[in-house]
């Protein structure tokens, strides 16, 4: 009975339409061509040092409709170096697919802390990191011109355009 329940649970967690969603979004168009040869994984600089990141397996799970794959750390381990995209014999834009899966996870409300932090920093300072004032004074010491100062009102408006606050709250 236990097994049956697990199977049922898993069955309901499968979203057979997920693949169409991936296919339709920019960057996901090529993902159906994957034939699981493992070139991406063998090429990946990250996969060699962790057991949980296997680009080909992630694509396989996404194809099957196991949407949960995007809610794990697994996709976020992709460093977006495009080595996989470069070597894929099927022309799958693997790095773009990983990026898209992250975007879809964020839409579903899964966003890692550091990404949230990045986004907030950009909206608050224009830069992805918060800048300690010591660094700005150091520029003066080194004789460098003042750093850029982006108009924060502009960034806020752009954020509103894509409803970014809904994603990071």
């Amino acid at each position, binding site marked *: 009975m236990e097994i049956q329940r697990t199977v049922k649970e898993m069955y309901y967690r499968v979203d057979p339409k997920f693949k169409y969603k991936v296919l339709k979004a920019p960057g996901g168009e090529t993902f159906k061509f994957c034939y699981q*040869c493992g*070139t991406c994984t*063998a*090429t990946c600089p990250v996969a060699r040092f962790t057991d949980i990141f296997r680009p080909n397996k992630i694509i396989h799970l996404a194809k099957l409709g196991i949407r949960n794959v995007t809610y794990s750390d697994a996709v976020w381990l992709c460093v977006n170096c495009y080595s996989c995209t470069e070597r894929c*014999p099927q022309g799958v834009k693997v790095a773009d697919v990983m990026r898209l899966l992250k975007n879809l996870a964020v839409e579903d409300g899964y966003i890692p802390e550091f990404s949230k932090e990045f986004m907030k920093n950009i909206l608050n300072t224009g830069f992805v990191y918060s800048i300690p004032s010591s660094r700005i004074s150091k520029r003066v010491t080194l004789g460098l011109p003042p750093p850029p100062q982006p108009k924060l009102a502009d960034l806020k408006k752009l954020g509103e355009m894509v409803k970014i606050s809904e994603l990071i709250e």
Partner: protein
Amino acid sequence: MRSKNSLPILIIGGGIAGIQAAIDLGGMGIKVHLIEEKPSIGGRMAQLDKTFPTNDCSICILAPKMAECFRHPNITLHTYSEVKEVTGSLGDFSVKVLKKARFIKEKECVGCGECAAKCPVRVPDEFDIELRRREAIYMYFLQALPMIMTIDKDHCLYFTRGVCRICERVCTRDAIDFEQKDREIDLKVGAIIVATGFDLFNPVNISEYGYKRYRNVVSALEYERLICASGPTGGHLLRPSDRKPAEKIAFLQCVGSRDVKNNQYCSTICCMHATKEAILAKEHDSNVQSFIFYMDMRAIGKGFQKYISRGEAEYGIKYVRGRVTKITEDSAENPIIWFEDTQDSAIGKMKMDLTVLATSFIPRRGRVDLAEILGVELDEYGFFKVNDLTPLSTSKPGIYICGCCKEPMDIPDSVAQASGAAAVAAEVIMGVKG
């Protein structure tokens, strides 16, 4: 039904397909002209060591067919020749054939090789894929037919610098003729069979595999020569860098096949020939350990899956499901293979003695010119185009096709198609068509 056409049939290409078609037509009493661009008939099959799934010696089953073709009263061989022009239509083609001068009196030469023994020139040998050097006067291969010599004009000292002529002095039969000229002959034929075969993808294009950069990374056809008793190493499986026995061998599948950047199609026979090559290695040396890196095992044919199972069980071949991403090399020139074993998600690298690339079948060089001469169409990949329900007919009536110039296929399929093409072409002569 019209009256009988008494014209001969032209076959372009003297590999196993062309040979079979010629023998079949000859047997029906139809005259055949067989054109081969190389100095001998035999083609790719002559370069192979063994055939799968029976491990028969390739040249041993080919040579009797070559001999039958050579001796057949109805077959006229034109080796070292090319088709230059074709006009006319079904039942009545006019063909211009260029017979290149081989600077040998064909009737006098007995192929004794005295001339080659004294020739001072050494150039890479085409038949042994440049793994060996040959002389400027040479026999195309040991079992060549016609068994006569040819002078390689591009490298012969007499033709390049106006000196030498040693071969002329040593020939006891006065068979050397430096004055020979290329000549054109005109043929009238009723039908044409194209059997020009294939070329192999140059893996230099996949630079991460380091072919030509690493001496111990070879193509599968080079491997066939390395392991063949009549090959450059006399049949000892020695790796090119240091001529030491290769004991750990990796076979990489789909090199240039099933690859959007190169050829999208499957070359169909590589899964089988890799298995054969790994079995042969083990038969040569029981210390050999072979690994075949594949994506999907395509054993399509009777007895093929059994062959693979036997390779695994009896010859200890390790089949690894995963495409190799790159090859590097250590200081001893051992190739190092980087891959994911996709069946247990393990990422690995493995040091090998020798690595063999199963290169993709590609359309033959020169087919664009030939298609234009014949007035037939090529398909999107560059192979000759056929229709699904007339798989042996090109886009032009009276011109038929068989073997690997249509698509990649194995030897039995090529032979079957050759007999088929012979049958449809024979209809033209027997009086059903044309």
